[in-house]
C-alpha cells in the first residue's frame, strides 16, 4: 500500500512544534499540503530511503521509505531550523542527535533547532522507529538537505552582500564575508518575507567530519530539562475536556473466549459507564482508578484456553511445529566441511520468552470530532497507528492525526499497540474523548514477547583448529545476526519459522510475539558465541586467541583488540568461582566486542556480573554521550535477559504479571561498565540503540563457563538452571 501523502490540517499557518508540554489545545483542521502550510521560509524537500541514502553509504532500499520525496527541512523567517520527522523519541536520544546533525551542517546553535516528531499531520511518512535506523537512514539524507539549505543561503547572501560565494562562510546562523567578518547577514534576514522551495536532487558537498564542531562532541540531551521538571508529557498525561478513562475486561488467559458477562452491578456505580461491543467490555469513568474499581464489579465467565503449552514443553513444540525454512547463508558444502573436520562439536541452545517491560505501559488518548480524529499515543509507529485507526473508525487516513509525545521506552514492544484501537473504539462508542492506559498487569499479559526459540549447531575444526564446518539451524528466532562473523569455508545457516513475529496466521506461540531490542540477534548470538567457546575449548585455545585465529575482518579485529586492551587478555580457567568471557557481533553494520567478569555463588547458583567492557564501532558518532548512554543501557538490559527475565506461562495464561516475579535489573546488579567507542569517522553513522544488548547473553554464559566449568545452554541462566547444571556435571 502506498502511504498517504502527508497532509496538514491546521487551519492557519501556525503549526505546532514538538512541544514537550504537549499542549493539546484544539485547532480547526483542514486539509492542506505541507508546502502551503509551512508558510514563509526556506523549505528543502528530500527523499529518505533509496537514492541519496544509498549514495551516503547505507544499503539501498533498506530504509523502509517510499520513493517520492518524503521529508522536509525548514529554515524559518526567524532563522530557526525545523526538522520534520516521523521518528519518535523513546529515550534513544535522536531528539538530540538529529538536531546536532542539522546544527552542524547549517552552522546554527543547537538551541535554534526545533524537532517536530511523530505527528502524522506534520511529518512525512515513516515506517516506524525501530532497528537502530534513525541516525543511520534518516540522518544522512537530512544532513544533505541541510547542506543544500546552507548553499542556498550562501547564494542569497552573495547577492545581498555583494561578495562572491567563494568569499563567504557561515557561523551562528549568519553568512559572513571571510575577509571582513563584520560584513554579515543573518539567515532570518535572508529568509524573512520569502518563500523558497527546493527539492534536493543532487548531492551537495557536506562538511568533512574533521571540521565538525557540534557533531561528534558529547552533548547533553536537549529534552533533559523537560524530563527532570515533570513538564515532559507522555501519552497518559494528555488531557481533554470531558475525557473518560477506560478500564477494560481482560480474559484470564490468551485464547479464552468470553462466555457470558453480567454488568448489572457495575452499571449501578455512580459516575461509571459500562459499554460492550462484542468482546470489548469496558468501564469508563472520569477517574481512572474508579474505572478500575468498578470493572471489578463486572462478572464474566470465559471458556478455558485450549492452549496446552507451558515453559517445560515449549521447546519440543517449537522444534516440531511445521515451519518454512529460509537459507540465510550457504557457501561451500557441509559434506566437504565434515570431511575436513577432525573434531566435531554439536550442541543445542534454548531461549525462553522475554517481556519488554517498558517503564511506561502502553497508553493512548483518542478524541473524535465530526469526521476528524485526534490521537495521542505511546507508539513507535504513528503512521501504522493512523492506518489502524482510520480502518477502525471508517475514516480516510488523512482525517486521523496521530501525535506522539515522549514515549517511555519501546524496545520493539510499541511497534504494536492494541491500546490505540481500543481507545478509538471506546471514543466512538461513548462520543467522548477516551484514554486507554494499560495497567502493568495488562502490559505484561498483552505484550508481544521476544519469542522462545531453539538452536541446533554443529561445527567442525580441522587439524590446525580452523573452523571448517558450520551447520546452524534456528527455530522461530528470526534470522538477524545468525550469520557467523568468522571465516568458515563450509557453512549453512537456516532459519525456520516466520521470524520473531511468528509469521502470518501461525499458531506457533500461545500469545503475541514481536521484535525485542536487537530482535533475533540476542538469541542467535547467544547460540553462536556460546558454540564458538565450545570450539575454542576443543581446540585447546583460550576464547580470545581462538576467535582471532578464525577472524580476518580487519574492522572486527580492531574492535576485539580494543576490548581486550581495556579488559585484559587472561582467562581464569574453571573452577575458581570467578570467570571471564567474550562475545562478538556484527549487528547490521555495527561491530561490538564485549568482555565480562562474573562471580558465581555455586551454593546459591547466583551469578553476579562484576565488570563489562564493551568496545563498539558505530561508524561516525554524532553524540558520543548519547551513544554511551545507549550502550550502557543495552548492557544493563542484557543482564536481565541473561540472568532472570523469562515469562512463565501455562495454558495461555501469563503467570508473571508484575515486577514482583518478573525480575528486571536494578541498582544492586550494576557492574562496572567501561565503554570504548572505537573511532571510525570515515564510516557513515551506524545504529547504536540495540547492538550492545545482543552479545550480553553469550558473554555472561561464556564467563560462567570460565568460572565454574558449566556450559549454560538455556536463557535465562537463572539460579535454578545453574544449580541443575552443576548437579548434572556432578
Amino acid at each position, binding site marked *: 500500500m502506498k502511504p498517504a501523502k502527508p497532509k496538514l490540517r491546521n487551519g492557519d499557518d501556525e503549526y505546532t512544534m514538538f512541544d514537550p508540554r504537549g499542549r493539546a489545545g484544539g485547532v480547526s483542521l483542514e486539509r492542506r499540503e505541507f508546502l502551503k502550510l509551512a508558510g514563509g521560509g526556506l523549505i528543502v524537500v528530500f527523499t529518505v530511503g533509496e537514492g541519496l541514502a544509498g549514495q551516503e553509504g547505507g544499503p539501498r532500499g533498506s530504509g523502509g521509505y517510499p520513493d517520492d520525496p518524503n521529508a522536509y527541512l525548514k529554515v524559518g523567517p526567524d532563522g530557526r531550523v525545523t526538522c520534520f520527522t516521523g521518528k519518535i523519541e*523513546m*529515550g*534513544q*536520544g535522536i531528539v538530540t542527535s538529529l538536531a546536532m546533525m542539522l546544527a552542524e551542517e547549517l552552522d546554527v546553535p543547537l538551541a535554534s533547532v526545533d524537532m517536530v516528531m511523530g505527528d502524522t499531520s506534520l511529518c512525512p511518512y515513516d515506517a516506524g522507529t525501530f532497528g537502530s535506523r534513525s541516525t543511520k537512514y534518516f540522518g544522512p539524507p537530512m544532513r544533505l538537505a541541510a547542506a543544500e539549505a546552507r548553499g542556498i543561503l550562501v547564494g542569497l547572501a552573495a547577492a545581498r552582500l555583494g561578495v562572491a560565494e567563494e568569499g563567504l562562510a557561515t557561523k551562528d546562523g549568519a553568512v559572513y564575508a571571510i575577509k571582513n567578518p563584520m560584513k554579515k547577514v543573518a539567515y532570518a534576514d535572508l529568509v524573512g518575507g520569502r518563500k523558497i522551495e527546493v527539492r534536493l536532487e543532487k548531492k551537495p558537498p557536506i562538511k568533512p567530519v574533521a571540521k565538525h564542531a557540534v557533531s561528534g562532541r558529547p552533548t*547533553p*540531551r536537549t*529534552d*533533559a*530539562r*523537560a*524530563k*527532570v*521538571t*515533570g513538564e*515532559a*508529557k*507522555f501519552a*497518559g*498525561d494528555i*488531557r481533554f475536556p470531558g475525557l473518560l*478513562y477506560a478500564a477494560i475486561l481482560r480474559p484470564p488467559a490468551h485464547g479464552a473466549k468470553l462466555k457470558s458477562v453480567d454488568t448489572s452491578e457495575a452499571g449501578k456505580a455512580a459516575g461509571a459507564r459500562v459499554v460492550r461491543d462484542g468482546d470489548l467490555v469496558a468501564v469508563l469513568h*472520569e*477517574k*481512572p*482508578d*474508579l474505572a478500575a474499581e468498578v470493572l471489578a464489579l463486572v462478572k464474566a465467565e470465559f471458556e478455558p484456553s485450549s492452549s496446552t503449552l507451558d515453559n517445560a514443553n515449549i521447546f519440543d513444540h517449537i522444534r516440531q511445529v511445521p515451519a518454512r525454512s529460509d537459507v540465510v547463508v550457504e557457501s561451500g558444502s557441509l559434506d566437504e566441511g565434515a570431511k575436513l573436520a577432525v573434531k566435531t562439536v554439536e550442541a543445542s541452545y534454548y531461549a525462553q520468552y522475554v517481556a519488554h517491560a*517498558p*517503564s*511506561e*505501559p502502553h497508553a493512548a488518548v483518542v478524541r473524535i470530532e465530526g469526521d476528524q480524529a485526534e490521537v495521542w499515543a505511546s507508539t513507535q509507529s504513528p503512521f501504522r497507528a493512523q492506518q489502524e485507526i482510520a480502518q477502525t473508525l471508517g475514516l480516510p487516513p488523512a482525517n486521523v492525526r496521530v501525535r506522539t509525545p*515522549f*514515549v*517511555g*521506552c519501546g*524496545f520493539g514492544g510499541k511497534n504494536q499497540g492494541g491500546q490505540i484501537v481500543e481507545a478509538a473504539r471506546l471514543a466512538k462508542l461513548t462520543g467522548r474523548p477516551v484514554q486507554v*492506559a494499560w*495497567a*502493568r*498487569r495488562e502490559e505484561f499479559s498483552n505484550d508481544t514477547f521476544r519469542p522462545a526459540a531453539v538452536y541446533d549447531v554443529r561445527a567442525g575444526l580441522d587439524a590446525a583448529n580452523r573452523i571448517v564446518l558450520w551447520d546452524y539451524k534456528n527455530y522461530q528466532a528470526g534470522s538477524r545476526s545468525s550469520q557467523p562473523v568468522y571465516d568458515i569455508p563450509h557453512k549453512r545457516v537456516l532459519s525456520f519459522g516466520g521470524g520473531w513475529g511468528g509469521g502470518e496466521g501461525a499458531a506457533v506461540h500461545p500469545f503475541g510475539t514481536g521484535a525485542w531490542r536487537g530482535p533475533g540477534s540476542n538469541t542467535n548470538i547467544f547460540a553462536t558465541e556460546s558454540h564458538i567457546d565450545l570450539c575454542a575449548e576443543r581446540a585447546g585455545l583460550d576464547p580470545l586467541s581462538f576467535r582471532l585465529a578464525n577472524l580476518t575482518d580487519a574492522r572486527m579485529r580492531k574492535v576485539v583488540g580494543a576490548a581486550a586492551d581495556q579488559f585484559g587478555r587472561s582467562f581464569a580457567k574453571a573452577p575458581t568461582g570467578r570467570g571471564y568471557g567474550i562475545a562478538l557481533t556484527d549487528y547490521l553494520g555495527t561491530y561490538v566486542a564485549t568482555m565480562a567478569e562474573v562471580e558465581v555463588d555455586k551454593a546459591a547458583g547466583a551469578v553476579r556480573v562484576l565488570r563489562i567492557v564493551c568496545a563498539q564501532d558505530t561508524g561516525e558518532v554524532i553524540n558520543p*554521550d*548519547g551513544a*554511551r*548512554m*545507549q550502550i*550502557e*543501557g*543495552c*548492557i*544493563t*538490559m542484557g543482564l536481565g535477559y541473561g540472568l532472570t527475565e523469562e515469562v512463565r506461562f501455562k495454558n495461555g495464561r501469563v503467570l508473571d504479571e*508484575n*515486577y*514482583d516475579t518478573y525480575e*528486571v*535489573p*536494578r*541498582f*544492586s546488579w*550494576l557492574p562496572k*561498565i567501561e565503554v570504548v567507542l572505537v573511532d571510525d569517522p570515515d564510516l557513515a553513522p551506524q545504529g547504536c540503540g540495540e547492538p550492545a544488548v545482543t552479545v550480553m547473553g553469550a558473554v555472561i554464559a561464556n564467563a560462567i563457563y570460565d568460572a565454574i566449568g558449566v556450559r549454560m545452554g538455556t536463557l535465562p541462566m537463572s539460579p535454578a538452571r545453574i544449580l541443575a547444571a552443576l548437579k548434572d556435571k556432578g
Partner: protein
Amino acid sequence: MNKSVRFQLNGREVAVETSPERMLLWVLRTDLEHTGTKYGCGEGYCGVCTVLVDGRPERSCQFPLAKAEGKSVLTIEGLSRGGRLHPLQQAFADHGALQCGYCTPGMILRAYGLLLRKPDPTEAEIADALEGNLCRCGSYGRIIAAVRAAAQALKMKVVDHETR
C-alpha cells in the same frame, strides 16, 4: 463516601473533595492535574510514582489520600524554584542520568528523600536507597553519579550560605 481532604501540595494548600480511600497517585494526576508523577506498576514494586510526604519518600500508588490529610506533599513539579532547577535536577541533566525520562521524577524524589536524611551518601548508600526504583533504560550508574554530584553541590550551597 466523599470527603474534603486538605494537604499542602508543593507548598500550597489544596483541598480535594473525593473518596479518601483513593490512592494519592490518581488524585495528583487526575483531580489535581499534576501529571509529573507517573504510574509504573500500581502495586508498589517499581518506585516510578514516588513522591515525598512530610519529607519521606512514599509510593503514591499505595498511599491512600486520607493519610495525606494535613501533611506536606512534594512532587516533581515543586522542586524547581522560579524556573531554576534544583541541584538534583541539574545534576540529572548534566550527568545524562535519564533517557526516556519516565522513571526520572520518582528517581529524583527518592534521591531527594535520601539527601534529607543523609546529606553526603556514598555510592553504595545511594544504590541501596534507590534499589526499589526501576529504570528500564539502564541509567543506574549515571543516576548514582548525579546524586553524588548533587550532594556535593548542596553541601557547597550550605557552606556558601554559612560563610555569607
